[in-house]
């Protein structure tokens, strides 16, 4: 019983991380119709920037905030330099550019930060919380809290602010949005910045548990993408749902079948969803994307 609980806790922990990354995929897809395969590298950059700032002596909360803002800025810069010139074109071109961008970001990170794994201090020190024979690390609680705040924040942004309504309008029909006076190019840049920021939050939240390095982006990118597809691209709630479900499936596979198959779960799920129900578990008719 306590083993099952421990597996579920691990599943929800990893699932929350996948949710944040999947949200990034969903937001960019909604804005441009393309998949941003550099999303995993934003996850990596968040963690690496956080470590860099902490090593420069900044107090942890400041370092975390600056790392998120910094990564969001890099995301915006990436969009302006690489995506904007081709934004009105084929989504396939955009996808290829993001793949190239992800390789570039990874190599730049290798040169700046080196190949070593680096640790980030836990956000709060303390021993794990014991519940019914299972243990919940404090950092795991932070991951859940941050994911909940991200979801809530996005909900408020999209439904209650003018800015959010403008983003939704851009996603539904870019021409119409432009006609009513929305700066659609800025909306696309803002989407990238938001997605990068969310990826950075995920990277920072999990770095104290797993350490981070220049090459963690590719793996998490695949899993976040699978989670986004599982939930249904274009819907933030679906992205979170997909992430949590994928995390649980991985954890239960590792616990009850074979830990070595854990990484295969995301890929099997991706293929299964694309074959059986391409719009994802929660994907609707695709009328409104955000």
């Amino acid at each position, binding site marked *: 019983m306590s083993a099952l609980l*421990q*597996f579920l806790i691990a599943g929800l922990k990893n699932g929350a991380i996948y949710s944040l990354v999947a949200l990034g995929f969903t937001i960019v897809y909604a804005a441009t119709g393309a998949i941003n395969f550099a999303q995993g590298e934003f996850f990596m950059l968040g963690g690496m920037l956080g470590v860099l700032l902490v090593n420069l002596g900044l107090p942890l909360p400041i370092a975390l905030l600056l790392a998120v803002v910094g990564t969001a800025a890099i995301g915006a810069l990436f969009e302006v330099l690489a995506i904007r010139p081709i934004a009105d074109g084929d989504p396939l071109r955009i996808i290829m550019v993001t793949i190239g961008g992800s390789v570039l970001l990874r190599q730049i990170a290798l*040169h700046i930060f080196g*190949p*070593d*794994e680096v640790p980030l201090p836990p956000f709060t020190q303390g021993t794990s919380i014991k519940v019914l024979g299972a243990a919940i690390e404090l950092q795991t609680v932070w991951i859940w809290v941050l994911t909940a705040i991200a979801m809530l924040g996005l909900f408020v942004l999209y439904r209650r602010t003018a800015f959010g309504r403008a983003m939704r309008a851009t996603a539904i029909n870019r021409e119409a949005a432009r006609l009513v006076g929305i700066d659609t190019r800025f909306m696309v840049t803002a989407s990238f910045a938001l997605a990068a920021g969310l990826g950075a939050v995920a990277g920072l939240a999990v770095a104290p*548990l797993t350490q981070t390095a220049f090459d963690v982006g590719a793996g998490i990118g695949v899993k976040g993408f699978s989670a986004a597809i599982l939930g249904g691209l274009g819907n933030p709630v679906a992205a979170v749902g997909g992430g949590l479900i994928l995390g649980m499936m991985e954890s239960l596979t*590792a616990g009850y079948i074979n*830990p070595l198959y854990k990484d295969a779960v995301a890929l099997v799920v991706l293929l299964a969803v694309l074959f059986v129900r391409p719009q994802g578990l929660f994907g609707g008719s695709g009328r409104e994307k955000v």
Partner: protein
Amino acid sequence: MARLGTARWCVTVLLLLVLSIALVGCSSASSSSTGSGSSGSSGSPIKVGAILSLTGPYAALGASEKNALELEVKRINDAGGLGGSQIEVIIEDDATDEAKAVAAATKLIEQDKVVAILGATGTGQSMAVRTVINRAGVPQISMAGGNAITGTFDPLVFQTPWPNSIIVPFVLKKMATDGHTKIAVLSDSSGYGKDGLAIITADAPKNGMTIVANEVFKPGDTDYSAQLTKVKNSGADAILLWTAGKEGAAIVKQAESLGLKLPMYGGSGQAKIEFPKGAGTAAEGFVFGTGKSLVPANWGAGTDEFKVVDDFATRYQAAYGAAPDIFAGHAFDALNIFADSVKRSGGDTSAAKLRDAIEQTSGLVGFGGKFTFSSSDHNGLAEKDLSLYKIVNGTWVPIQ
């Protein structure tokens, strides 16, 4: 439209600039050569290739090995080289990946025409390049600890670390002496982990211990809750960890945070400062077995081994500001065995002559111990070269 054209042109130039910087940077990071270029040499440089894991789970090991190789090559070249010829080491990064190691071996042999290969850092990679080695007939001196490297005998392959076949029984004996009877084994699915697990499974019963949990994790994995939960519920009284990668620190840390308080043991894979640094307080009390040379004083002042190891440690500390770990030591041995063999072959670096010269290495004092190879033993080390250590206050101390 004109404005868009200018902007696009500027962005293109900027991107090309960044790309060329990245390419120049990339090519120098993945392959570098050190050595020839110092004082005038009489002959063309002797080229030896090194396949190191400079990135990936074994990055810490590869970095130490690179330091040691560069230090030793400089020392030999400054003293005149080998028979007047300078040594040139060409280093390739295999990123702890077997396919990349094979590609690196092919490149080193066919393009750079090296006379020998030092490496690889990891067992899986060392075994993977064996087909390339045999096809080219070029000798290989591996710096990885898998038993299979010399256990599955190949006339061209030699090994400088203490293989799993002597470290595993050594550590198991200590676990039995400490009174453990039910052990849990945590190993990774790399060549080194699988190699170690096979020997652990065979030898644990010989020491009166049963394996009540046998959990495996993948290199690069970051979450071990499944494996650790099963270990917790298995009723084991001690854990044996068999991995050389960076996962060692993470798994020990996660074990502590899950409330797993069992005594933990390991092998050479934890004999690097990154292990206690990454694991923090979770590594306190961790016991591992590796060579005596990790703490040179183990040999006793005045012995040949102490003189060689202490001299290397002093020079390494002066050059890099940190004590050498065992992986630096394995690279030190590989290069010195190579240099000694070239000297004995009279400068003849043809593949067959060089291989024979390496095999005739006898009584060469190195970091691993005294190396004596034969036509059936390409490792030459034994349990007398080992010692046990415990992590105390973030570093290791020798124990009985």
